């Protein structure tokens, strides 16, 4: 887009209901009953002047600028707070209204600095616009009266500033924090002339503010302003694209001057986020132009040699020659590839195609192996396809919400805001999690039940819930008999009814009182609309797949599938986990979750790709590492993942990487994995990519390039060139041709094209002849597999047990301001909030060990140990400790083990037996591994990461 996209602000939110017809300045318009006069007028093409109103917030009626006259109504009511009535005749422009509005504006301007020419918002200021609209020419009160010009700017937040001299106290920011974000960090302090916006009496940085940016977005003046805009000036053009952080998949307007991003503003018409954002997507995009970016291909003979910058041709030829040499010597199956959930569908698709067609094997896997592979197994077995059942909007119809093993306010914040909105309006919340996550008790939201179960006992708890549903006759018999298999239901029903699955029998196992389990089962079964949202606290267990099936069983038994407000919904971790799985990244499946052993499916791809394809499954990611250590697997292509930091049992992973004859890394930065690499292909950031991401609700979103690839090539082009160098011709003129191939070969994507996405914004698969505009809610009327299948889910305790040496259980996860291995967020000011991984532990566990808050501690398991600072927190249950894995200096996965989900080998990150020992209160020193890395990185200018240097300082800094 060559111009700046400004969305039409209709003033107040939409309403649903029967239509009524009104007349605005003589023009008829039909709107749903309950719609405000302001919105009806805007829909009729008449924008009533306004300052305190915006269509993302409920009407407030404070600015008195939007006054109108209504035939038969006395006075001049505010159009924002007045609902329409059938036959209403409204006048928006009369001499009386013009006079009143000018008077209002005079009062505002008499206490506003007249520095428009030097104001950062010059040309992007609603106050300025309204002064023009109402025809303000002078201010009768003058400017010498009492004012707020001496107020100090609060620039404590790294991304935006608060200049109270420009504030008109419209309360938009306060209301956005409440209504949109649900944090309630802001308030209006004082009364009358002393009224001012306040982050509750402290600075923005020290407040409860989560930096979602909602307040900045709605501010009609330059009071709350992005610092990037202050320094760069107002943007000139917009590119619509999709955030590259979590699985919510927020749509953003990238607002630019030339090719330089001024700011990222959430897009109101984005299907997933509908105009909201979080601190990562809104502000933490600076990594894309960080000086650590590697922009030239590099090669080296062995990982202890310095890197050598080479041309693309040389790098690709070098990689191909070495890959071919490995295959000649060790066989076709000695090499493989890993796709990335941070890359586009198109980039992922070509990597798996290269492995299957050019490498000639099925040794391709994806990082979803270590997060949501059990979702694939569990939901395919029970429902027939590997995807969440609902769109995000569905939560607005839920009456009971079960959040299981997920922490949405940190990991999926924009969806969490949507969920909190529904909870504030009356839905009941159940949290099932060992930790007291924020959602358990947050402003105006409180869980009715928090089942604080023992880590590793999910399946036992779910069976107990099933027991209550069956034995207390809470089963939706009509749904089960119409929609599900009779025989599998009978088997499951008998299984969960057994006494050993009763809440009373399992209470000692789960640690959850039987009466709480019974209460939750009754609540869920009686909904009437009950929805399950879950995260990696479900999947990253030795019975992750069983747990997914157990949740699906419960949803089917109670009829909570196939309509709005219900469902089983995985909250995907990375931006394109769903897409990378959909694109055929697993070693046993082609795109669309079809087994490689299916002759008819394989024939489709053999015809499309002109190659005979392997019919047996390839190696999974952990199998590749095991085989590498064993010497049978010798070459690996890693697309955009840092397995040396993210995968469990770091020592084993590093041993595997060090064993390879050839490791090719395609990434933005020289990450931990690249320390073992022989070829480095520089990658592209989301601001350079052209393609699609698919979010947790199966929504295919466009990712549009804001700038040319800084490395000179799109990642899919590099893969095609490598494939050609290996002797398999792979060519596309552009990314849309890749999506066309996906659509030709994959029935669930048959209707998807860039052309369609550009036209309608986004679609949720299946998108085909039957559903040309996609499928927001799945399994309506019939499951994808036909009848729903109930799986028996016996509880098998994990082999990972606490003992005298390792008496605590460690679980790992993420935090709001950081993302995955931190490669992106560590290169932004988000480190000011979270500059290191810390270990959360219960006060009693700390006291037992003589540990105080902030102490340096050793965290040890049977496979390794690391050092980090302790944070004493009663959010933790006794006996359980928690940390994040965002920082290589900590390398939390040094501690996690080889245990994994029985069906998919998804690692058991959530249960590791550990011990914690006090060390001292000294800051963390840079790890010897990190220090040793330097030699691998020479002569690259990016050898030293600034955060590595800063780490010691930040370790002493504030941790939230």
């Amino acid at each position: 887009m060559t111009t700046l996209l400004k969305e039409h602000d209709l003033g107040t939110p939409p309403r649903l209901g029967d239509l009524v017809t009104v007349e605005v300045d003589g023009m008829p318009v039909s709107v749903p009953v309950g719609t405000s006069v302001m919105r009806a007028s805007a829909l009729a093409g008449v924008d009533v002047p306004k300052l305190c109103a915006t269509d993302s917030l409920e009407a407030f009626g404070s600015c008195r600028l939007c006054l109108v006259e209504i035939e038969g109504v006395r006075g001049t009511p505010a159009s924002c707070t007045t609902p329409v009535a059938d036959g209403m005749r409204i006048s928006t422009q009369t001499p009386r209204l013009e006079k009143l509005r000018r008077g209002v504006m005079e009062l505002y301007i008499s206490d506003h600095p007249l520095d428009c020419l030097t104001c950062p918002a010059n040309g992007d200021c609603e106050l300025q616009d309204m002064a023009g609209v109402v025809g303000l020419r002078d201010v009768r009160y003058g400017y010498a009266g009492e004012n707020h010009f001496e107020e100090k700017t609060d620039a404590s937040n790294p991304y935006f500033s608060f200049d109270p001299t420009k504030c008109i106290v419209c309360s938009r920011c306060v209301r956005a924090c409440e209504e949109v974000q649900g944090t309630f960090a802001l308030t209006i302090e004082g009364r009358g002339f002393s009224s001012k916006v306040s982050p509750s009496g402290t600075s923005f940085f020290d407040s409860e503010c989560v930096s979602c940016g909602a307040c900045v977005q709605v501010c009609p003046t330059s009071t709350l302003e992005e610092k990037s805009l202050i320094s760069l000036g107002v943007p000139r053009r917009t590119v619509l694209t999709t955030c590259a952080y979590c699985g919510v998949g927020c749509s953003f307007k990238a607002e630019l001057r030339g090719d330089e991003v001024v700011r990222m503003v959430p897009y109101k018409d984005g299907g997933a986020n509908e105009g909201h954002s979080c601190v990562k997507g809104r502000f933490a995009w600076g990594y894309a132009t960080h000086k650590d970016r590697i922009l030239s291909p590099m090669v080296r003979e062995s990982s202890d040699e310095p890197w050598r910058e080479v041309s693309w041709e040389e790098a690709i030829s070098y990689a191909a020659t070495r890959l071919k040499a490995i295959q000649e010597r060790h066989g076709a199956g000695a090499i493989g590839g890993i796709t990335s959930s941070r890359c586009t569908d198109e980039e992922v698709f070509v990597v798996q195609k290269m492995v299957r067609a050019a490498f000639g094997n099925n040794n391709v896997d994806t990082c979803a192996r270590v997060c949501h592979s059990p979702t694939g197994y569990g939901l395919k077995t029970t429902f027939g396809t590997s995807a969440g059942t609902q769109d995000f909007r569905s939560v607005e119809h839920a009456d009971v919400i079960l959040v299981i093993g997920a922490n949405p306010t940190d990991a999926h914040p924009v969806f969490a805001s949507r969920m909190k909105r529904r909870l504030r309006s009356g839905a009941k919340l159940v949290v099932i999690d060992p930790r007291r996550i924020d959602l358990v008790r947050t402003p105006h939201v409180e869980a009715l039940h928090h089942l604080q179960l023992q880590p590793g006992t999910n399946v036992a708890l779910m069976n107990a819930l099933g027991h209550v549903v069956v034995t207390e006759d809470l089963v939706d018999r009509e749904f089960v008999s119409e929609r599900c298999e009779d025989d599998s239901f009978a088997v499951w029903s008998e299984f969960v009814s057994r006494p050993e699955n009763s809440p009373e029998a399992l209470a000692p196992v789960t640690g959850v009182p039987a009466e709480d389990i019974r209460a939750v089962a009754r609540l869920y079964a009686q909904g009437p609309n009950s929805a399950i949202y879950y995260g990696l606290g479900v999947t990253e267990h030795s019975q992750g797949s069983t747990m997914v099936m157990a949740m699906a069983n419960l949803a089917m038994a109670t009829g909570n599938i196939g309509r709005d407000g219900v469902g089983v919904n995985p909250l995907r971790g990375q931006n394109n986990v769903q897409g990378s799985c959909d694109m055929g990244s697993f070693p046993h499946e082609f795109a669309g979750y079809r087994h490689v052993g299916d002759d008819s499916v394989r024939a489709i791809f053999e015809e499309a790709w002109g190659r005979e394809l392997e019919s047996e499954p390839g190696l999974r990611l952990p199998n590749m590492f095991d085989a590498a250590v064993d010497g049978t697997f010798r070459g690996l292509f890693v697309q955009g993942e840092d397995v040396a930091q993210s995968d469990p049992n770091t020592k084993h992973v590093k041993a595997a990487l060090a064993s390879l004859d050839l490791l090719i890394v395609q990434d933005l930065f020289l990450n931990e994995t690249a320390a073992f690499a022989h070829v480095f292909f520089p990658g592209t950031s989301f601001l350079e990519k052209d393609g699609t991401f698919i979010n947790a609700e199966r929504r295919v979103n466009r990712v549009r390039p804001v700038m040319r690839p800084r490395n000179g090539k799109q990642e899919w082009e590099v893969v095609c060139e490598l494939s050609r160098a290996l002797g398999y011709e792979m060519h596309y003129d552009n990314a849309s041709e890749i999506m066309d191939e996906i659509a030709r070969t994959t029935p669930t994507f048959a209707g998807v094209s860039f052309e369609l996405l550009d036209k309608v914004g986004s679609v949720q698969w299946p998108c085909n002849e039957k559903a040309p505009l996609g499928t927001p809610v799945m399994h309506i009327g019939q499951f994808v597999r036909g009848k729903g299948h109930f799986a028996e889910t016996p509880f098998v305790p994990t082999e990972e047990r606490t003992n005298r040496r390792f008496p605590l259980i460690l679980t790992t996860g993420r935090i709001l301001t950081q993302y995955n291995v931190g490669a992106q967020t560590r290169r932004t000011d988000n480190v000011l909030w979270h500059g290191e991984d810390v270990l959360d532990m219960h006060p009693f566990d700390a006291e037992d060990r003589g540990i105080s808050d902030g102490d340096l501690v050793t965290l040890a398991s049977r496979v390794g140990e690391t050092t980090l600072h302790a944070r004493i927190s009663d959010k933790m249950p006794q006996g359980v400790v928690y940390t994040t894995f965002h920082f290589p200096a900590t390398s939390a996965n040094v501690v996690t083990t080889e245990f994994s989900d029985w069906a998919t080998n998804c690692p058991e990150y959530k249960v590791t037996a550990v011990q914690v020992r006090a060390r001292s209160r000294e800051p963390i020193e840079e790890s010897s591994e990190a220090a040793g890395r330097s030699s691998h990185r020479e002569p690259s200018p990016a050898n030293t990461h600034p955060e590595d240097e800063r780490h010691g300082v930040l370790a002493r800094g504030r941790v939230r």
Partner: protein
Amino acid sequence: MASSDLVRMANDIAANFRYLGTEKAAASVANHIRMFWAPAMRTELLELARGTGTPLDPVVIAACQVLKTS
């Protein structure tokens, strides 16, 4: 691949199908391994099952018989 990894993975699968009884569990384990394991891993497992002293679950050993005959 290290035999301990294969044994652990196979035994984990067996533990989750054991509720079916040995015969059905063996068939389910065999089917699971056929669907998801690379051929080289299956071959190694069959070799382990032929040997003595490998701590394989009896269900896995029975599953290996199914794999051999199918």
